[in-house]
């Protein structure tokens, strides 16, 4: 499965050469942040510390980190069992202790990581927050003595490009809110019929 990477051989030998003591922690750290869309998992300082800890040059360190990320992403994609993962890694000549480290890190945090990937949304805009306010409108410029309840819904919609939360304010009267709720109930019925 991993054989088609030409740089795999170099990466494998680099990984085999790393210190076993710090390796499991590196694995679980990468696993934690795998689902985030950020380009690099580590900041500049962290990379320098890693370079020192594993006594690797900057380029070699990048290769090692990318290979580990790739291996784990493939494990997510195929929903591999820990044993299968270990087998595959040993077949590309990764040392047994390193392969075992992969397998145990995957066994510990694998399912959580898969779940986080499942929850990832591809759409440009996503609903993040829901806030609301219930007001009793007593009067307005066009009408006196109202006493009508009004609800204001504040929806926080995040934008993929600008990365800031757009607040959408919507006002409802009692009747309008009831109709909206009925539509949500229809959606819920559809969701229920899926399971």
């Amino acid at each position, binding site marked *: 499965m991993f054989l088609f990477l030409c740089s795999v051989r170099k990466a494998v030998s680099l990984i085999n050469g790393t210190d076993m003591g710090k390796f499991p922690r590196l694995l679980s750290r990468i696993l934690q942040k795998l689902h985030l869309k950020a380009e690099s998992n580590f900041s500049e300082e962290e990379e320098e510390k890693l370079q020192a800890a594993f006594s690797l040059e900057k380029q070699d360190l990048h290769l090692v980190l990318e290979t580990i990320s790739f291996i784990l992403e493939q494990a997510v994609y195929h929903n591999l069992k820990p044993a299968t993962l270990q087998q595959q890694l040993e077949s590309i000549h990764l040392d047994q202790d390193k392969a075992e480290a992969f397998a145990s890190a995957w066994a510990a945090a694998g399912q959580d990581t898969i779940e986080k990937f499942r929850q990832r949304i591809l759409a440009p805009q996503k609903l993040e927050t829901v806030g609301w306010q219930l007001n009793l409108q007593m009067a307005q410029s*066009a009408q006196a003595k109202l006493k009508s309840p*009004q609800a204001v819904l504040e929806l926080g919609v995040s934008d993929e490009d600008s990365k800031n939360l757009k607040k959408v304010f919507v006002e409802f009267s009692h009747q309008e809110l009831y109709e909206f709720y009925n*539509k*949500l109930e229809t959606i*819920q019925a559809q*969701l229920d019929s899926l399971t």
Partner: protein
Amino acid sequence: MAAAGKAAPLPSRDGDLGGGFLGARLPAAVGAMARSLRQLDRDTFRRLLAVTVSALEGNDCKDSVQRIAENADLSEQQLAVLISGMYTLLREALRLPLPTFKQEVFKEDLKDLRIPDDFIADFASIVFGNRRPVLEATTLKQANSLPRVKDFQWRVDVAISTSSLARALQPSILMLLKLSNGEAHRFEVPVAKFQELRYNIALILKEMNDLEKRSVLKIQD
């Protein structure tokens, strides 16, 4: 709102100081109009009233006003005073809901402004007559509020496979919310957020029901 709803008007009230349904201080436009009304003949008054009602319904009345100005013997200033006064008077009267606003009180207040009796009858027929629902509908349309939902479309998708998962099988909801101010928002809602939204809406509805039953709504107008 000094006298609206009370049986007897306040003892020492001067027309210029206001009181009654127009509030504690008489709007200047209404006062000026009341003084000019005495010189007006019934026909011109009726035509001006028709134009004012048309304006209240939201129509553009430039032509009609022009015609009245040509036929009657009124200067532009006098016309402005009369129409603005009538418009303000009718608009304030239409604000008050019918159950608590009695016709006699309205007529009494207008009498205090020394408006001629037959003109009072004409005003009353607008405010309490069967043209009123149309006027009320127009004011409701122009009312200010935060954007309301004009259209709500949704769909439920199930992601079978993605670039990161060969077998995802994850449902998701896409919503398109069109608001009354013309904005359209299309966004995806994760299932967990959807449950949160549904819970919150149900909570607001429950609170609204409680509010409507509480005694604060039984405040006497």
